[in-house]
């Protein structure tokens, strides 16, 4: 009987908490569909009296289609590259010996300890020198290799038994063949986790795209939303519609792939 009462209290606490957590999202969604006059009504309406679908269309028309394209291109490219470079480098570090291996790996790890702000100014200079300012490649190329990814992959690939690799070698499989046929299929869960992490991180990245882009041409969604908000702040219904456009896809993807997200975090967190 006491157990039942405790459980009820737990549910009560957690469900109320959930409502508090969801409130900002709810507010964003309903405001995004309110007509301009209702968005600035005080006291605000909890259920819209009128649904206005044109807010999203208006925001989309203000270059959000371009911002979407840029974000998708950058995030997808970075994710694909990171998956490839991390698994390959992780494989090499895990299963091959060569001079200076320990030192190199230490160097790889050390790049993870550096806060981005320390390198962002000189990175900007490098981009200037390469004439890559305001180009998508400035956001893709620096992110192609990920120390975190290499670390994660190495940890996992080292658990693959060497006998498997030796057997494949005896059968005449080349190193790259082993990588492609043996390693990749065996690390699919970690690959998914890394993919989700990387994609989400790249999609939500703000400071670097802010610094390196200065026109609609290469602007990503995060910077686009920031600029849009600056310009149209008082049109709350439009601004909320813009936020919805930025958050919406990520939430949908997350809800579909939740299990993998959570696995990814616990994997990366507990492997230290």
């Amino acid at each position, binding site marked *: 009987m006491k157990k039942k009462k405790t459980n009820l209290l737990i549910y009560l606490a957690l469900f109320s908490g959930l409502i508090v957590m969801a409130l900002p999202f709810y507010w964003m969604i309903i405001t995004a569909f309110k007509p301009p006059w209702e968005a600035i009504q005080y006291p605000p309406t909890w259920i819209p009296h009128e649904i206005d679908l044109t807010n999203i269309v208006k925001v989309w028309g203000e270059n959000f289609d371009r911002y979407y394209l840029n974000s998708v291109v950058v995030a997808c490219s970075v994710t694909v590259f990171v998956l490839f470079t991390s698994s390959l480098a992780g494989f090499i570090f895990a299963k091959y*010996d060569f001079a200076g291996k320990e030192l190199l790996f230490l160097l790889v790890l050390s790049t993870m300890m550096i806060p981005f702000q320390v390198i962002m100014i000189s990175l900007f200079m490098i981009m200037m020198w390469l004439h890559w300012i305001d180009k998508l490649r400035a956001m893709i190329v620096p992110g192609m290799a990920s120390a975190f990814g290499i670390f994660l992959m190495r940890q996992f690939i080292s658990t693959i038994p060497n006998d498997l690799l030796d057997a494949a070698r005896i059968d005449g499989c080349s190193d790259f063949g082993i990588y492609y046929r043996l390693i990749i299929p065996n690390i699919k869960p970690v690959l998914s986790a890394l993919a989700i992490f990387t994609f989400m991180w790249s999609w939500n990245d703000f400071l670097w795209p802010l610094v390196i882009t200065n026109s609609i041409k290469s602007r990503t969604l995060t910077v686009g939303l920031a600029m849009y908000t600056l310009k149209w702040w008082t049109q709350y219904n439009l601004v909320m519609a813009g936020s919805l456009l*930025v958050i919406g896809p990520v939430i949908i993807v997350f809800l579909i792939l939740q299990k993998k997200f*959570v696995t990814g975090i616990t994997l990366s967190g507990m492997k230290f």
Partner: protein
Amino acid sequence: MNSKKTSKSKKKPLIVYALIPILGCLFFFGIFPIFFSFYLSFYKWSLLRIPEFVGLRNYTKALHDPVFWVSLKNTFYFTGLSISIGIVIALLLALLIHHSPRFKSLFRTGYFLPVVTSMVAVSVVWKFLYQPDFGLFNSILSALGLPPQKWLISPTLAMPSIVVMSVWQGLGYNMILFMAGLLDIPEVLYEVADLDGANTWNKFKNITVPLLKPTFLFIVVISSIGSFQVFTQSYIMTRGGPEDSTRVIVQYIQHKAFDTLLMGYGSAMAFILFAIIISITMIELKFLRTRWKY
């Protein structure tokens, strides 16, 4: 460890050379810029003119710059407040969900959802919620008969407002880590404690807390490193105001380097920030490690 290595061949396998482009990219964009930044910090360099060597002047300039110190203070304030509140709530949630017989997935998903969303969008939405005239929060306060607040326009409330939003966004992440840590604690320990007649508080204090220490340490270190780099919230919601109360160090660096084009100065400040982060991390590791008893 050696038993896991493949047999060494006389010549280096071709595949190892694949490391060259991969690590080359990583080091060129990840290590080289540090040295370049360090070099830059001794120069006065706006993009248009020839760089001018100024020695340590950027560093002394920073140490005498009142806004620099205010930014540091605000950053520490943000970090301290958000970590302490955030970790307590995350642990509480983790414990509740851990002991909840049903709906675990639902709760986990629900509390974690804000973590995947862009801080830019979150800042925009919460800026609207905090809006003094039309915002949700003041309307709730009024409905409860309480006076409306200035939130982001008030020098005293602005930073705490940003902290609340940041905690909201980030607690799901720490919650998941705590949940993983809780799962690692063997059930057997609790059962034995029950047999010995321990009550809930005792079990928590003597089993849960000590065994969660590694998780706790990890969370504190990772959270503080991240919190010191706070930027987006300050940039979007208040741009450092009102009266510099939300000016955080990264926002000041970004402003000085890219708005006023004092790149050398920005680099110097970034290095000071770097030194601070390293020191805090080492202090945390030392301090929390020594209290680790099984």
